[in-house]
């Protein structure tokens, strides 16, 4: 609860954030051809009738499956590139148990967005990482996941993991505790129960432990744990989204 209050306080201190938007629906692909990766993803909230633009999600929908949308209305994006109220930040989790009818809209005059590199892009292996400045103290890094997935999201989790390993290589902590969480107590969305598989916390923790080992961390200093009782966190990488912040792995380094 303390963490939740801190998250709320941090969010309020920064700016009056829009209310969170959270619902389940079938995604719609709008084929705005503005070059590579330029198509739009739209999501209609059946309860309000509002069509949202969820294209800014780190992992995009699959038009064959329902998605859980979690986000906030963007503050200040100019124009209407896709034909929906822009959510940013936003997460879209594919709900594989619920099939959808594929639906694709033509551009209908909407320009879409030209592709630009995102803010969380991993550098090539050949590019030297700057050594994070010391002094080094106990520190926790976090990776965040889609519902019921342990997959490290491209241009999101890989970036966060790269930040973590760069610091770990420099700081050389004595021990690392990897804790994976399953969010089983998430509120319903669109009348549907959104409760993660209790085993996903363990799967996430074991995957991240393996990932750290592949990146050169001595497995002997890693302790792997899992929990089904996550609290939200005010980590900047969670972009202020409360429920997604619970679906995570903590990488806690101690000296």
């Amino acid at each position, binding site marked *: 609860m303390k963490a939740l209050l801190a998250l709320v306080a941090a969010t309020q201190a920064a700016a009056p954030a829009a209310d969170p938007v959270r619902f389940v629906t079938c995604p719609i692909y709008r084929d705005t051809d503005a070059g590579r*990766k330029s198509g739009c993803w739209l999501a209609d909230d059946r309860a309000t009738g509002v069509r949202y633009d969820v294209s800014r999600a780190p992992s995009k929908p699959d038009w064959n499956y329902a998605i859980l949308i979690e986000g906030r209305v963007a503050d200040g994006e100019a124009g209407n590139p896709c034909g929906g109220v822009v959510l940013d930040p936003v997460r879209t989790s594919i709900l594989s148990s619920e099939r959808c009818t594929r639906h694709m809209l033509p551009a209908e005059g909407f320009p879409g967005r030209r592709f630009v590199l995102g803010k969380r892009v991993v550098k090539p292996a050949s590019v030297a990482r700057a050594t994070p400045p010391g002094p080094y103290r106990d520190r926790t890094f976090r990776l965040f996941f889609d519902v019921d997935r342990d997959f490290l999201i491209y241009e999101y989790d890989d970036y966060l993991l790269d930040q973590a390993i760069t610091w770990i290589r420099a700081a050389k902590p004595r021990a690392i505790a990897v804790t994976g969480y399953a969010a089983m107590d998430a509120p319903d969305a669109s009348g549907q129960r959104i409760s993660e598989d209790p085993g996903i916390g363990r799967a996430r923790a074991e995957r991240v432990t393996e990932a750290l080992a592949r990146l050169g961390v001595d497995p002997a200093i890693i302790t792997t744990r899992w929990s089904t009782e996550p609290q939200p966190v005010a980590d900047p990488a969670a972009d202020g989204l409360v429920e997604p912040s619970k679906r995570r792995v903590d990488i806690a380094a101690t000296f």
Partner: protein
Amino acid sequence: MFGAAAGARADHEPQRWWAPDSGRVFPARADYRDSTGTLRVLLEGGPMETEGHPFFTAIGPDGRACVTCHQPADGMSLSAETARGRWTATGGKDPLFAAYDGSNCPTLPQGDRASHSLLLDHGLIRIQRHWPPRDLSGKTVTPDFDIAVVRDPWGCNRGDYGPEKGRISVYRRPRPVANLKYLLAIGFAYDPKQGMPLAIDPESGKPMSGNLMADARAGTLDVQMRDAAATHLELTKHLTPAQMRQITTFETRLFVAQQRDVEGGPLDAGGAEGGPAKLETSEPGQLGSIGKPVWSEFAAWEKPEPGLSKAQAAYRASVARGAKVFREKTFLISDSAGINSPMGFGNPVRNACVFCHNMTQMGNDVAPGQVDLGTTNMPFADPMPYLPLFRITCKGAPHPHYGRVIYTSDPGYALTTGRCADVGKITLQSMRGLAARAPYFSNGSAKTLRDVVDFYDRRYDIGYTEQEKRDLVNLMGAL
């Protein structure tokens, strides 16, 4: 096919077929005629004696050497045309046609051409995989799918050769053994298709590129060599460390690319940078989208050069257009595991050929390139009654695009990982030296480069114009 236009013939072409134990000197530079002009093979560091060299020596009982299926004239792969030539020249007695994998199945009458039809007509070698699968370290994997044999035209997926005896036979093209620094390059530390850092070689402790074999069953040249020696060469004892070092040293010195086109002349003229010399000196593993664009080797040809013949000018313009089509003509990619799942690009996603063929100068994937284009999976694969067909039933989560049941002629990467989500994924390969090594795709289902373009056009409903198709074919022939 080999026209008489100026420059069509390679000067001083070496003998095309390289037999094991021939004792020839491997030259620093060799030019071979191929379907569109001249292929050039460079050996970095100068000529090499092959006498006693393990790549060229028949060290196993079947009379084969590595070079049998990795012929310099075929871009260090093996074309179906070359296989047919050997059949004719030797009456089917060449070690290439060894019963173990140079025939459709060892149980067939080996003197009959029909028993070798997959190699002769489609350039395919039999690959016998373990069932249940074994991972990169050789450990048995518990698969999350069942496999049943639906069609077995050659009898190599039943009885002693079937899954019930721990074996599955698939049929694949030999991959070119050249330009390996590109295929071994580590562009990024992470494999976005697996959502993990790159897998680590247990022997060296270093990350592996994941781009070596069609099903990624070997992550290093050492493992690949051991696998090939034990299967294709039927070697009952291991290669020695010294032999493996010799082979590795040789293979990593080889650079292969098209050097000259029969119509267009030299591919490194007029400001273009085609040919293998550039490959030898360039840095591998670069992502074209953030550096030197893929196939920008031909960017100088976008501007007409005065004084060229009409045919040469037209050819250069076509190759340059083909490179732009390759990079810029976007289409909707859908239901392709390794692209549309699970890495979060979305299904569908709009992009171009270069989305996956993204490594500068090579056209393979900088990330480990296991992708299901549908070349082996129904309904996207073309009819191939001559290949076996398997029914895969996913026991856990269904496949994100095919559902619970998948029909495939080659499960590909799934025969290494044991995951139904990987069925039909085949590792992207180098796009160099294509004109010398038809047919294409891992199962040889595209007899020509035009067939490759047509497959993609059908698969993704791209709508290439006739001109765009010709431009892409000319581009690929120039690589």
